[in-house]
């Protein structure tokens, strides 16, 4: 027997909001990403100028040297609005939790060769502070950039980086203890190995142009650091020395970088494709910050790579250049 469920069908007066219809070309049903992103930021008739920055409006596209006819040209290929974002992270969180449990319950931390364990503590733990710096920088881009299409992913990125700093802390507590964290902070503050990177991060704190800050942090620094540390050192070098457990503990970072670079690349591409002027500005920032971050990461990489450092770093830089060329900026 077949039962037909009858529902009342009412013809809607319209399918979405006017601003969305104006942008997607017709009164079509819109996605939640579109309705939660497009034109969310106010654009007109601001009442007062910021007392803390009277040169600018509350939201002001002139805070950056990048010029866009429409800032909503920036789209997040992940289509992250808050709901999609938290659901994605909660899922990764489940995996990460299972990985930590696996390593902990089987006592895998204790089976790590001592050299691997020491390398991990020396290399990974000071990176907590780099992630914390990224949290600040991404908050800054979110606060002072223009248009929700561009600003929105930065609050997610800010909180992701806080999450990463906290994962690194857990790795530290699992493989070491609170003293390991203190020792890593001391190294971060005092050891020569880390001063180039610390200077890079502190210098990035005073970058006023939000798009340049996006480049310095999310494109250049992360663009070298993640492939170098998580993909090369941990997944290849340390794993071959019996450190697979570490790769499990940092899977979040590996997956996270693979995902976020799609957004980063799309953002670079859209900014550069807008005009020859933008492309030139982007290329200038990219090469300047790439060179600085490669130099800052070199002594850090040496902790794990020893003699092979220069060669690996050159490879990572080359991959980065190829990635940027694909995004439309030859550097």
């Amino acid at each position, binding site marked *: 027997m077949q039962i037909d469920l009858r*529902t*009342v069908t*009412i013809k*809607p*007066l*319209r399918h*979405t*909001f*006017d*601003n969305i219809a104006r942008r997607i070309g017709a009164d079509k049903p819109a996605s*939640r990403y579109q*309705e939660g992103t497009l*034109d969310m930021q*106010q*654009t007109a*008739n601001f*009442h*007062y100028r910021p*007392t*803390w920055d009277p040169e600018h409006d*509350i*939201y002001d596209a002139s805070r950056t040297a990048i010029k866009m006819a429409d800032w909503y040209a920036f789209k997040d290929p992940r289509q992250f609005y*808050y*709901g999609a974002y*938290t*659901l994605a*992270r*909660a899922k990764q*969180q489940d995996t*990460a939790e299972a990985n930590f449990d696996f390593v902990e319950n089987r*006592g895998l931390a*204790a089976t790590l060769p001592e050299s691997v364990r020491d390398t991990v503590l020396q290399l990974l733990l000071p990176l*907590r*502070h780099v992630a*914390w710096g990224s*949290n*600040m920088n991404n*908050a800054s881009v*979110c*606060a002072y950039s223009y248009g929700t299409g561009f600003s929105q992913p930065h*609050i997610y990125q*800010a909180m*992701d980086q*806080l*999450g990463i*700093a*906290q*994962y690194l*802390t857990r790795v530290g*507590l699992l493989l070491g203890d*609170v003293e390991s*964290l203190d020792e890593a*902070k001391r190294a*971060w*503050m005092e050891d020569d190995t880390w001063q180039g990177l*610390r*200077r890079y991060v*502190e210098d990035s*704190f*005073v970058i006023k142009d939000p798009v340049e800050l996006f480049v310095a942090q999310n494109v250049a620094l992360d663009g070298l650091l993640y492939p170098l540390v998580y993909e090369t050192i941990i997944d290849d070098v340390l794993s071959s020395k019996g450190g697979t457990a570490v790769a499990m503990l940092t899977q979040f970072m590996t997956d996270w970088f693979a995902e976020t670079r799609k957004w980063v690349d799309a953002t670079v591409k859209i900014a550069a494709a807008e005009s020859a002027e933008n492309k030139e500005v982007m290329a200038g920032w990219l090469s300047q910050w790439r060179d600085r971050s490669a130099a800052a990461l070199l002594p850090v990489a040496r902790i794990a790579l020893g003699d092979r450092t220069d060669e690996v770093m050159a490879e990572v830089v080359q991959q980065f250049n190829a990635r940027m060329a694909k995004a439309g900026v030859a550097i």
Partner: protein
Amino acid sequence: MDMQVAKKKLGLKERYAVMTRGLDWTPSYQKMEDIYPYIAYEGIKIHDWDKWEDPFRLTMDAYWKYQAEKERKLYAIIDAFNQNNGHLNVTDARYVNTVKLFISGISPLEYVAHRGFAHAGRAFPGPGPRVACLMQSLDEIRHAQTQVHAISNYNKYYNGMHDFHHMHDRVWFLSVPKSFFDDAITAGPFEFMVSIGFSFEYVLTNLLFVPFVSGAAYNGDMGTMTFGFSAQSDEARHMTLGLEVIKFILEQDPANVPIVQRWIDKWTWRGYRVLTLVAMMMDYMLPKRTMSWKEAWEVYFEENGGALFKDLARYGITMPKCAEQIALEKDHLSHQAWSTFYNYAAAANFHTWMPDEDEMAWLSSKYPESFDKHYRPRYEFWREQAAKGNRFYNKTLPMLCQTCQIPMLFTEPGDPTKICYREVDYKGDKYHFCSDHCKEIFEHEPEKYVQAWLPVHQIYQGNCFPEGTDPTVEGFDPLAAVLKYYNLEHGRDNLDFDISEDKKNFAEWRGQATKNI
């Protein structure tokens, strides 16, 4: 195999400390004042950021987990509501006008809060408050988006909210909530925290959310009720942050007390003025009422707020002075506001109406001192006129208060028969105010408030017509041009509820859903 020595488990507080506070360091390659440029100019003195008590000790893993669960539930309910034409279960289509107010007046403010907390979070050198602010920034974009998503379905069937972003930046009365948040985000980071984190989120939020959310529930609007409840658990966190901010600032230095007191006075008054919209929603716009504005004020401000200020007395903070005037206005606020919107219903993005006999009886019972004496006769007259085909729409523009931007519709404290006007001469210009409190706020920061984008002035200066409009052509209709600039569709989005498409469609659709036709 060696026996593994069990590691000492960290307590919650210690664990949170290494997960958050331990991440921070004192920079040396750049100066603190260059990294945190907005921290000194308000005059607030902080000696020890570590004294900040983290109210929640939430780490990101826990945050994602809980929030994702809430999102899953929320969107499941929104989807079910939409699929089942849940909007037809509301009491009557007049109710939908509260949703219009909400999406054009409140949801855009959630977005500003998102950006504002990102700014404050970046500005504070202390890791505790930074993380708390950034989590709130993330929550606030959640609120803006879940509201848009929940209300999107109403927009498909009802008028007035189809271009709410555009309207928020332009429509005259939406300048009131917009200017409130513009004021907050253009203030320094500490004042932002006191204005939004404390005054709004802590002291006044119940007056906004309880009527809206329980109003939604009372009137059968599951969609709005659900996002309201879902936001409420975030709000609890935000309220705690708001209170923590105040205590922290006050405990740091006695010199902070007078600065904070001024902010509390200012933001309580500005927040209360914005809540005028809520007052009329409660007393007039909910077909099924939850409680009167006056009752809500008594419970949430006079009782709860009173207890809070008693607590804060040990720091030297006193009840905002404006509370006295508000107590005198509570018998009149909603009636005066509704009368004004009834007048200006041609230029608003929602419908108005005169209360029916039952509703008038309810209003008399809730406002025995004022309703029958001052407002019922006015309404009866307007109703008679409307019945004769003379529904009155005011086409002249009112004078606005320079600070709160509300038309000068309020009466003298203690004399409901006399409009209250105040004025100030500043650098050769005259500025007008609705009250002593708005005048005082202006006088403290005149350079800020002279910038106000006052809709009426802007209309008269010709700045609120669509581009390319020539106001000198014969037969030019300024109101029609202004409505075009608002993208308000005359005859659909505005005017009286009785003649509205909303009313007609709702009756027809409900008929389809409940009758055999």
